């Protein structure tokens, strides 16, 4: 291999429920989709392993309930994993499983290494803070103290995501869905994260706003070389953004490859169905 990944995920497991004799052994478990009928345990992520390389956009596709968002929440520490390992290859974090780190270390990663854009802006923004205040919140968490500097940074970020500056003191709850999403992107970018998670960022936006957001994301990736994981059920979005793509079904990776290869020469039955459904 000629390069080192920035994020390595190995055997990530997330289950809801304790499991029973029928389903504890992963080799022999019999599930209906990802659900154990005898004990009601749901296996949301099963043995997910992948690498994310510097400057790369990795697409994650799959139907609703396939485990895409759960995986992102686990990586972002919004939710604990059941088991598994993940490594971030930056000088101060290399060689340590991030899932086993202390709450303080996890907070450090969230504040300095990660950016997250949720599908629902309510999760990522404080709707009753001003937009500029939302960004300042993240900047303060990342150790900034100078109010003037923070305001200048926030202004620049909001400008980058095309939020008119005369509205920067306004609360995001007054904004349209597309604007809220862009404030969220500005907030996620404010600590210059090397890794950015984007969860269904264009879902529910009209085509024109979607084009804006896509262009913005592509530009950010090009100019800043940030590594991104983009979760979407929209194959067109994945085709535009992702270099490589992973297909999830029932919490498992069933296929991965170069994005155009996954879309034009899908190998798995489910991926073929998915691609045939493309408009």
């Amino acid at each position, binding site marked *: 291999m000629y390069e080192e990944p920035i994020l390595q995920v190995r055997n990530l497991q997330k289950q809801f429920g304790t499991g029973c004799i029928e389903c504890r052994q992963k080799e022999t478990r019999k599930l209906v989709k990802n659900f154990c009928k005898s004990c009601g345990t749901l296996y949301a992520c099963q043995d997910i392993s992948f690498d994310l390389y510097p400057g790369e956009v990795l697409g994650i596709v799959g139907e609703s309930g396939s485990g895409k968002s759960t995986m992102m929440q686990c990586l972002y520490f919004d939710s604990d994993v059941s088991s598994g390992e993940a490594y971030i290859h930056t000088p101060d974090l290399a060689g340590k499983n991030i899932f086993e780190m202390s709450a303080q270390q996890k907070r450090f990663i969230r504040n300095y290494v990660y950016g997250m854009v949720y599908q629902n802006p309510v999760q990522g923004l404080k709707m009753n803070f001003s937009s500029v205040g939302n960004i300042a919140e993240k900047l303060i968490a990342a150790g900034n103290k100078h109010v003037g500097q923070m305001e200048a940074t926030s202004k620049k970020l909001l400008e980058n995501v095309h939020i008119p500056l005369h509205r920067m003191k306004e609360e995001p709850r007054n904004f349209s869905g597309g604007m809220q999403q862009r404030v969220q992107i500005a907030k996620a970018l404010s600590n210059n994260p090397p890794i950015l998670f984007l969860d269904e960022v264009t879902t529910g936006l009209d085509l024109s706003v979607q084009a804006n957001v896509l*262009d913005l994301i592509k530009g950010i990736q*090009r100019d800043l070389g940030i590594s991104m994981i983009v979760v979407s059920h929209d194959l067109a979005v994945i085709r*535009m953004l992702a*270099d490589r793509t992973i297909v999830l079904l029932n919490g498992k990776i069933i296929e991965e490859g170069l994005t155009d*290869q996954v879309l034009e*020469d899908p190998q798995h*039955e489910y991926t073929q169905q998915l691609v045939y459904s493309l408009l």
Partner: protein
Amino acid sequence: MAMLEIVDFGKRFTIHHLGKTMPAIQNINLSLEAGEFIGIVGKSGSGKSTILKSIYRTYLPDEGKIMYDSERFGEVDLAQISERQMLYLRKYEIGYVSQFLSVMPRTTCRQLVTNALLEMGESVAVARGEAEKALAHFELDPKLWDSYPNTFSGGEKLRLNIAMATVKKPRLLLLDEPTASLDQQSKIKVREIIEKLKKQGTTLVGIFHDIEFMDGLCDKVYDMQTRQLTITKEVVSHES
């Protein structure tokens, strides 16, 4: 070694909902040296595009080898190298021009070509300059530079597509039916473009419906029906 050497290559498609595996192509052998232009001809459905897409890894190869002499990695089998290596080659060494233009929505023609260079790590100033040169080189009307390509004609889209691929100065350029659905005038233009690329030393693999269009341009012709590789260079120099 040759720049590209395809050995006993084959590709099958497994269609799950039909429960069938269909062989697309088998036993393909061909090679080309740096700076050569090879034309692949054959009926539609004979597997021309399959070869090209397999070289570019849009299709996963099944049998055989696709040996490529990379500047960065040395001699590699394109059927085996990692996805990340393939992405590197796509960025810096191998270009692909498809019949259809598939680009970011609401991005101007000028910006698209500039972005291709920015992705390679060029500075904004260099990228802008080179992009304009490329657009002018492929005779796209400057009036179109700041408009969105979904309003372009077929010929204009194709030239933009070629500009986006060639501005990166790939060592190997794959052309998937660059003349399909074009009128005679536009075809002649494409032919001129290919001549220019050849003069710059680009190694080219092209797929063509109409073999006569390529007369005098190709160094080699590969016929999908007969599986024969014909060297046409001598004939060409004789004619001229």
